[in-house]
């Protein structure tokens, strides 16, 4: 039979589409149901973070950093304050470091719960989403009793914290840890090992390890491809060397190493590791003042710094140039979602159109972080 020539179809997914997790437009070129090209268009949420920063003083940038990855504000702040502290040579008190680590790990739980819940939602499983949101709510409550805000905290300041933890914080965190522990196996039963879910995710969107490195993949996306790399271990910052935890990597249990299921599963395991860190840290918070090191005027010397931390989404780096004045000369944010989203083209080519949704969800992008 002679081959029938067919026209390629161009289809716009987004900017308003429930499974693009924000305002992202993907221009799909399709041959029947097979995707032959994906062209992402971003920038719908561009709020000029970098330009704004140049007009602000150093501490004034922190609330803007919050709003980059708005479901993960603590980690954004941590990266920024570490960069400024490195530039100024400030050593923060140990109590501050402990509280920062606990907050960052709680934030990692909240961020991963949202990622996992919405990913189940993408696959058509609505129940796990509600379970995840209910659990995430408990984390947000812990943040709320600490600093009054549920999403955008402005809690980590240069050299310290905006204020101390409340008196009953440790007790509440311990209660939460006990509450959270059975949740992981509950999620596994509900979603991870569900036959339909595995069929939708395993062997799809395979990211080979060498391409992952070359294309700048970060965080769970990188580790999903079997690369054991975590900045908390490989380029330690804060007091992470004190804690004992593992780096989960993708093993290809249900399909191939580096497929969507692997990336998803890395997040599940990372939540267990975060709980381990919180448990080790919560009883050892030393006494002290959390504000003693906060400078009255944040005025770093002339110089430049690139500081990076491991956020739930991957490597978040701030490149800050100081000209010795009160305002930063240049702030560049290297956002993990930005680099991870650029993989979508390579990961979706040759798969079905419904798989694009699953691959996009497995990258766990937040458009606020991409567009800045």
């Amino acid at each position, binding site marked *: 039979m002679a081959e029938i020539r067919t026209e390629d179809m161009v289809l716009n997914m987004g900017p308003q589409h429930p499974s693009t997790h924000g305002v992202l437009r993907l221009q799909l070129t399709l041959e029947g149901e097979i995707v032959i090209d994906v062209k992402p268009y*971003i*920038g719908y949420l*561009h709020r*000029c973070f*970098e*330009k704004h920063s140049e007009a602000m003083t150093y501490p004034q940038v922190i609330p803007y950093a919050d709003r980059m990855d708005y479901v993960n504000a603590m980690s954004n702040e941590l990266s920024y304050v570490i960069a400024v502290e*490195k*530039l100024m*040579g400030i050593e923060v008190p140990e109590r501050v470091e402990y509280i920062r680590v606990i907050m960052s790990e709680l934030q990692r739980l909240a961020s991963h719960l949202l990622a996992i819940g919405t990913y189940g939602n993408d696959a058509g499983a609505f129940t796990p989403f509600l379970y995840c949101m209910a659990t995430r709510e408990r984390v947000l409550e812990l943040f709320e009793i600490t600093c009054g805000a549920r999403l955008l905290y402005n809690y980590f300041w240069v050299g310290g914290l905006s204020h101390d933890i409340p008196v009953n914080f440790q007790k509440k965190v311990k209660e939460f840890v006990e509450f959270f522990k059975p949740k992981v196996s509950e999620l596994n039963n509900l979603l991870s090992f569900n036959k339909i879910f595995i069929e939708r995710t395993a062997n799809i969107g395979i990211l080979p390890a060498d*391409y992952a*490195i*070359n*294309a*700048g993949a970060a965080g769970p996306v990188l580790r999903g491809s079997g*690369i054991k*790399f975590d900045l908390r271990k*490989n*380029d330690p910052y804060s007091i992470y060397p004190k804690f004992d935890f593992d780096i989960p990597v993708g093993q290809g249990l249900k399909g191939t190493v580096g497929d969507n299921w692997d990336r998803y599963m890395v997040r599940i395991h990372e939540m267990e590791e975060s709980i381990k860190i919180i448990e080790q840290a919560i009883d050892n918070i030393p006494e002290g003042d959390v504000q003693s090191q906060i400078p009255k005027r944040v005025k*770093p*010397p*002339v*110089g*430049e*710094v*690139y500081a*990076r931390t491991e956020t739930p989404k991957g*490597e978040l*780096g701030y*490149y800050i*140039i100081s000209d010795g004045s009160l305002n930063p000369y*240049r702030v*560049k944010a*290297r956002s993990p979602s*930005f*680099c991870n989203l*650029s993989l979508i083209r390579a990961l979706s080519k040759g798969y079905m159109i419904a798989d694009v949704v699953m691959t996009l969800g497995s990258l766990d992008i937040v458009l606020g972080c991409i*567009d*800045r």
Partner: protein
Amino acid sequence: MDIKEIYNILKLAFEEGIGEPVTDKPVDPYMIIDAKNINAVCLFLRDEERLQFDYLNCLSGVDYDKDNLAVVYHLSSFALNHKLVLKTMVPKTDPNVPTVSDVWAAADWHEREAYDLIGVIFENHPDLRRILCPEDWEGHSLRKDYKVPEFYNGMKVPY
């Protein structure tokens, strides 16, 4: 491996265009590389057995001073666990820098961003379009002398 050793290796491999490492400023030391050399140097850094810079952390465009733009490359190596910062300077009147997106695929979007916001033109880039601003936006907003246009497509731009 520290920046002095890397500098010595590069100095042997390339006759010119490799600047002395700058280490006197606080924190990260860096090297200034001639723009015309940058692609060859990056390829060398990636493939050389002793260096293996396989990961591009960050590529930033900077409005450096009155006459110059800079592109800053933050590199690291998974295999050897070391880091390096490179800079290249180009005059604002002729802001052409060869692309490194053939060396690291990660550079593709970063270079588009630097082009969009700073106005560095990356030669041989496969798809050099604006990425964050709309395609018909005028000017490069992270330049220090950038003036916000009063109107965009006939709409008044607030603030």
